Structure formats: structure tokens, C-alpha cells
């Protein structure tokens, strides 16, 4: 019991936000008379927030180094425009279009990363410049107009669903099968981890607690896939998101590269003196951010089924807010990818719930701003409490 207490205390910020997310969901579920959690709406929620979550993952790394990237919205718009020109005007097939668009993102990232990491111009300034430059360039290449529509295959990534090979009418069986497969993989991995930990004679959760933990997680996963299955199944973009979250969760937690980013944010000088190649870390963080911005741009253009000069306005602020709400520290070195995703979902559920209720967009802005402030205030409060 004490252990759970300690575990809870150490992770209160993250659990706290998880609890906040669940409370917000329950709140809107009740007040909207159950519309929020309808399978259709859950699917919508995922589609609506996918690009912000993609950005939040990249933004998290920037914030981890103690910086931010203001250019992501403009870069997303710019890459969306490029992909529209390639795909619609030049009739380039979808896969090369996506590949080339991501490459453009990488080049933009290398450009910004160069100024940030090697010339050491503050990221705020470089990316503020980038925000203006790429917004301008977007308008230039689109000549101020909207280009539409994309070929259907292009839209799959943003608004498609996985095909139901085992179709049976009512339920999307493939989705259910995926849920079961995921559960099996998860159980396997957890058992493996437990065995490894035991090998070193470290303490592990007691057997009943362990089984309970597995049971709850597996239950949640399958409930979720069942829910999706009763509409159109798993959206393609959810697979993309899940892959990103898993990959970045793994990289930040388990790899040397990830540890170097944390070390950079925690104390750049100490990291450098410990052999971390700090300039290189900073460079790659910004390359990565722009590639993910490009990906978000592709997803957004596909969802809108158009490339417009005004795409992606304020995306950077949503992504930054998601990270801060999710527990990342503005001074760097603290936070998790999962936290940022939770932060992004809180914003998403708020948006969606308020829209269902018919709250005007102006009020939505104000409320979101207030939530951001409260989240950070909660963070500061718990930190001070921990000190005493």
C-alpha cells in the first residue's frame, strides 16, 4: 500500500492530468447526454485532434530542451501546399508525394536547426522568423488560393479507416481482432519485463497487483477497439498516432539519444561536460520537429481535402499548450510523451465537448486559455508542496 502511495506521489502530475482528463470526459458525457462518447463522436475526436497530437509529440522534444518552435503551423501549411501542388497539379502519385513532402520538412528542419544549434541564435527568434517566412511562402506558392480536391488515396491517411477483411456487417471485426492481438503482445512484453527485473533481484509489483494491472489495461484496450468497431473501425490516422507515441515513448525513455535530450534540457553545461554532443542534439530535435510538422501538414491537408493559405494558423500554440498541460516544464528537462498526449486530449475533449454544447468559438478560446493557466498553476503548486 505504501508503495502505491509513493508511486502515486512521484507521478502525481501525470496521474493528476490523467484523472483530469477522465473527469472532463465524464463531465461532458453527462452534460451532453451521452453524445460525447458515442462511437461516431469518439472517432471524430481522434480525427479532429490527430494533427495537433502529431505536433505535440515533436514539440515535446523542443520543450524538453527548454525551447519552443513557433514555426510548426506555418511549416505544416507550407508542406500541405507543396503536397497539393505535387499531387493535384503535377499528378505525382501519392506515395512519392508524401515522401517528397516529408523531405521538404526535413530540409526546413535542417535550415532552422543550423541557425539554432550551430550559430546559436535563440530558437524563439529563429522559429518566429520561420513562422513568418513559411506562412509567406505558402501564400506565394498557392498564389493566395485554395487548391483542391486531393485524390482519394491521399485522404486515406487522414480520414480513412482500415479495411475490414473479416467483414460481417454490424461490427468491424478486424478492429476487434487487432485489439486482441495488441492485448496479447502487451501481456507478453509485460511478462518479459517482469522476468528481467526479477533477474536483478529488484522489487516488482506483487502477483495479484500485476495481474490486476494487466487486466485493467487489456480491458480498456478492448473496450476501446469495440467502441471503434461499432462505428467504422480504426481510423488510419490512429495507427499513425499510436506508432508515433510508441516510437517516441520508447526513444525518450529507453535510448541513449532520448537520455541526451533530457540531459540537455536538465543542464546543458553538465551534459556537454559529460560527453553529450549538445549542438548535434539540438539540431536533430529541430529537424525532427519540422518533419513532424510536415506530417501534420499532410494529415491536415488530407482531412480538409484542400491546401489553403490559412491552414495551420495557431497550431503551434495548441501544440505548446498540450505539452505544458501534460506536465512538461518550460525550463526543460522534465515531462513525458504520454503526458503531452494527455494534455492534447484534454484540449481536444474540451473543444469537442463545448462544440457539442454549442458554446461559441470565442468562449472556447477563453476557456482553453484558462485551463492552460490552471494546469500550470497546479504544476507549480504540487512542486512547491513537494519541496516542503
Amino acid at each position, binding site marked *: 500500500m505504501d508503495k502505491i502511495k509513493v508511486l502515486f506521489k*512521484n507521478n502525481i502530475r501525470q496521474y493528476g492530468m490523467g484523472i483530469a482528463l477522465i473527469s472532463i470526459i465524464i463531465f461532458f458525457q453527462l452534460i451532453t447526454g451521452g453524445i460525447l462518447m458515442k462511437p461516431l463522436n469518439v472517432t471524430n475526436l481522434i480525427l479532429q485532434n490527430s494533427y495537433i497530437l502529431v505536433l505535440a509529440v515533436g514539440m515535446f522534444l523542443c520543450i524538453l530542451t527548454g525551447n519552443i518552435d513557433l514555426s510548426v503551423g506555418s511549416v505544416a501549411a507550407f508542406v500541405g501546399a507543396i503536397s497539393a501542388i505535387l499531387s493535384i497539379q503535377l499528378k505525382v502519385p501519392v506515395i512519392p508525394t508524401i515522401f517528397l513532402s516529408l523531405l521538404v520538412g526535413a530540409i526546413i528542419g535542417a535550415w532552422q536547426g543550423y541557425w539554432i544549434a550551430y550559430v546559436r541564435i535563440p530558437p524563439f527568434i529563429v522559429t518566429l522568423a520561420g513562422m513568418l517566412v513559411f506562412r509567406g511562402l505558402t501564400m506565394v506558392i498557392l498564389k493566395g488560393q485554395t487548391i483542391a480536391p486531393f485524390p482519394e488515396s491521399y485522404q486515406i491517411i487522414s480520414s480513412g479507416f482500415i479495411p475490414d477483411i473479416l467483414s460481417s456487417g454490424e461490427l468491424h471485426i478486424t478492429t476487434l481482432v487487432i485489439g486482441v492481438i495488441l492485448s496479447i503482445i502487451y501481456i507478453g512484453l509485460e511478462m518479459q519485463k517482469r522476468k*528481467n*527485473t526479477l*533477474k*536483478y533481484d*529488484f522489487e516488482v509489483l506483487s502477483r495479484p497487483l500485476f495481474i490486476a494491472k494487466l487486466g485493467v489495461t487489456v480491458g480498456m484496450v478492448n473496450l476501446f477497439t469495440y467502441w471503434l468497431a461499432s462505428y467504422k473501425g480504426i481510423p488510419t490516422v490512429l495507427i499513425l498516432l499510436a506508432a508515433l507515441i510508441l516510437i517516441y515513448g520508447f526513444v525518450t525513455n*529507453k*535510448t*541513449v*539519444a532520448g*537520455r*541526451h535530450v*533530457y*540531459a540537455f534540457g*536538465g*543542464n546543458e*553545461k*553538465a*551534459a*556537454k*561536460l*559529460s*560527453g*553529450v*554532443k549538445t549542438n548535434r542534439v539540438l539540431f536533430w530535435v529541430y529537424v525532427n520537429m519540422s518533419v513532424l510538422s510536415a506530417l501534420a501538414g499532410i494529415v491536415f491537408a488530407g482531412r480538409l481535402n484542400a491546401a489553403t493559405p490559412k491552414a495551420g494558423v495557431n497550431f503551434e500554440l495548441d501544440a505548446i499548450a498540450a505539452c505544458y498541460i501534460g506536465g512538461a*516544464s518550460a525550463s526543460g*528537462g*522534465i515531462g513525458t510523451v504520454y503526458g503531452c498526449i494527455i494534455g492534447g486530449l484534454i484540449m481536444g475533449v474540451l473543444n469537442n465537448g463545448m462544440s457539442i454544447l454549442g458554446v461559441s468559438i470565442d468562449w472556447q478560446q477563453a476557456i482553453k486559455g484558462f485551463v492552460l493557466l490552471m494546469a500550470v498553476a497546479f504544476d507549480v503548486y504540487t512542486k512547491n508542496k513537494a519541496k*516542503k
Partner: protein
Amino acid sequence: MADKLLEMKDISKSFSGVKVLKGVNLKVDKGEIHALVGENGAGKSTLMNILSGIYEYGSYEGDVLLEGKKCKFKNIKDSGEKGIVIIHQELALVPYLSIAENLFLGNEQEEKGIINWNKTHTYTEKLLEKVGLHENSHELIKNIGVGKQQLVEIAKALAKEVKLLILDEPTAALNDTDSEHLLNLLLELKEEGMTSIIISHKLKEVTKVADKITVIRDGSTIETLVKGKDAITEDRIIKGMVGRELVDRFPKRIGTIGEVMFEVKNWRAYDPLNEERLVLEDINLYVRKGEVVGIAGLMGAGRTELATSIFGKIYGKNISGQLFKEGKEIHIKNVSDAIERGLAYVTEDRKTAGLILIDDIRHNISLANLKNLSHKGVIDDNKEIHVATSYKEKLNIKCAGILQKVGDLSGGNQQKVVLSKWIYSEPDILILDEPTRGIDVGAKYEIYTIINELAKQGKAIILISSELPEVLGMSDRVYVMNEGKIVGELEQAEASQESVMKCIMQSSKEAK
């Protein structure tokens, strides 16, 4: 019988269930200099934080009596109004404001919200005169040295009609001349009736200025030594602090010195801010396996610059010269090269350059050698915990567990974490820059023992320290540095305070 100014009675204070202070008593008379000594973590700072209201009334047990009246401070402002001023180790000055602006910060010479600058500057000059600081009151704080900044802090306290001045490690960052000046100032102020409490690890200073010395150990008052009544010597104080007699401040080293491990030849480097200025001039030195070589010198002699220019060229421009390891020339372009070649550098500034304070002990220890813990870039968590735990035990790091944040540890334990990190990087050559700065006698002894253990394992150790007794007590051989040059090399037998100073004086004379 002098008047009692302050009495702290049976003060107890707990942090999350751990009792840090257990009924401490402190009595300070008017017009005396009262020293508070004790090991790191003994509770000195906690006691002072209670006195200055940082820990508010009610959060501790016991009474604080100022001139016989009970004080209920809620914050530092309350205690300031009663004339208690605390000067922390980390100075609270604004670098881009002038001396005068800093002096009256929060205490502006104003009329209806408008600052009277003439009055401010005249008053500032008077105060600067009093503390013996000859600087223009318009000078920016960032342009004057740490020693002078300390004087500004004291002047700032004087501007506020201070009754009781508390100085926390005032000389920790100062060189000998500046320390001397500061201590003399304290004595002068005492003549004028000022009461002060001084916290210091430098026992030599304590014995020089203090009228009374209160020793705190493990949150309890052990004793109060009174000048003239008790014999006040460093050994006597240390005995009180650690609870036993330290027979030897430097543990004996058993081991054999082997072949030459590392050699620096004709090493030159220029100032990165001013490429004309030669900072290191034709340095030649070597260190053998199992040998501890000390580098002595005054502040600004170029010792840290030498170490950091060797260790991955972090410092310096246009560096030239050769490095040899076991007779073979090695080339080092950056820090990771240096680590790969078996070098380790323990920085003089553990808080800003040695540790990631917001991260835990485990991650700090593994940072310089993640290669050893990972396979294809993926870190083995379990192995990492294993490594951290074993160093925690080996080096006796006192902590709640390896998941504790490094920032919450005491100075001595933080230094052990830094040492663990570098020992785990498996170096052959260790450069230790001020390894015992700001840590107490007991922890120092432990660090010396670790150094000896490393030497015994055949590692080559370069020890840089501003404390001459430490260099002399620990080294097999001593290089003396002055103004970017090696000006002397002394074997252990011939090395002494006098011979080291002689080398420095001679070279300074020649330069003129």
C-alpha cells in the same frame, strides 16, 4: 555581562517526518561575532532560515527571542523590519543594475514614489566608504568581482539599520586577499557595535574572528566555545563537529607509483574572448600510474583553464601542443573523444556544470558512460539501477534512494555523485578540479579516501585545489602554476606552504 540580543530556545523542525533540528539552542550577545559551525546537513541553514522567517512561525517548535521579545516572523520581510539581515552564499544582486540601485533595492530613497537619485548616490558613497569599497556608485554589479559584490551586500545591509547580520559562507567564493578584507571589515563593524552570525567551513577564519563558536551536529547543539575561556583551535572545533578526533586530516595512501601514464607537452592556449592574450604558456607536465599530482596556484593562475583546454578543448582558442597517453600521442577534439581516450574531468562547479540537479542520482551517474549500459542505443534500465546502487553503496552516498533528485542532496553527497559518474566512465586519468569545495570536514575525508583508492587502482590523478594544505597533504608531487605558466615542480618532501609561495613570488618578480 553583555546584553543578550538573540535567543533561540529549543528549536525543533521536521521535514516530511524527518527531524532536522532537535531542540537547538543559540544565544547571541550584543556586539559579538558568533560563528555557527557544523557539517553539511547538520542544520545550520535550517536554523538561519527559521531566524530570518523563511520558515514561518508555527512551522517549527521553540521560541525565537529578539531582545527578550518573542518573534513571530511570517516571512523574510518581517525579520528585515526587526533588523535581521541574512546574506546568502548565492548573492542576491541584480547584475545589470548599478551599485547604488542595488544598495537601495526595495529600500529606495524616494519621495512620493519618485526616487531621489542625488540622495541615493551620496548615501551610497558614504556606505561604500564605510565598507572600504572604492568603486563608483554608478558602476554595474556585473563589472565588479565577487569579493566586491560581497561588500556591496554588506553595505546594503548597513543601509537598512541592521541589528543582526547573518553571513552564510561569506568567503566561499573569495580569494585570500578578499577574504582577509571581508573579515577585517567584520571586526571593524564589531567595534562599532554590530552583532553578526557567521556560518563558515573555513575554520581558520572562524578561529580568527569569532568571539563565540556554537557547534551543531545532527540537528543538536553540541557546545558553545567562548574565546578567552576555552582553547579555540581548529582541531578542537573539528572534534566537536564530527564527534571524534580526526587524527589525520589526510588519509595515508598505500600503493606503488608506476610508469608515466599521461603527458602534456608545450601546451598553449589563447583566451577565447581575446585571441591576442596567451592564457597558457608552454605547459609541460606528466603524471604516472598510481600517482596523485597536485597543481597549486593562486586564483587566476590558469589551472582550470589548463584542465578544460585538455579535456575536449572546452576552453581556449588556437590550442597547440601535444598529449601523450602511455607514450603514444593522442588527439582530442571534443569531450566524447576525451572520455573515450580515458580522461575524466570533475568540474570545480558541480551545481552548474557537474550535475543535472533536477534529475535523479541514477541518471546522473550513468550519463557519461551510457555506451556501457546500452545495446544498439537502447538503455538497459535494470543494469543502470544496478550500477547506480552499487556506486551509492561503494561511495557511501547518503540519500533516500537512487531515485532521489540530486538537487536535494547535501554538497558532499552531490560531489560523490559527480565522482561516481566519472569513476563509472572507467578513466585512466582523472582531473579533479576543487573536489572538496564547499563540503565539510567529514565528507572531505571520505573524498580523500576515494582519491587514494583510485590511485591504488593505478589511475593517474591530477588534483587542482585552492586549498594549499589539501594539495600538500594529498599529492605525491606538486606543480606550481602562476599566470599561465608552470613555475615550479616540487617533490612531496620539499613541498610546503613556503616553497610553493616562493615559486609564485619568484616568477612574479621575474615577470616584472
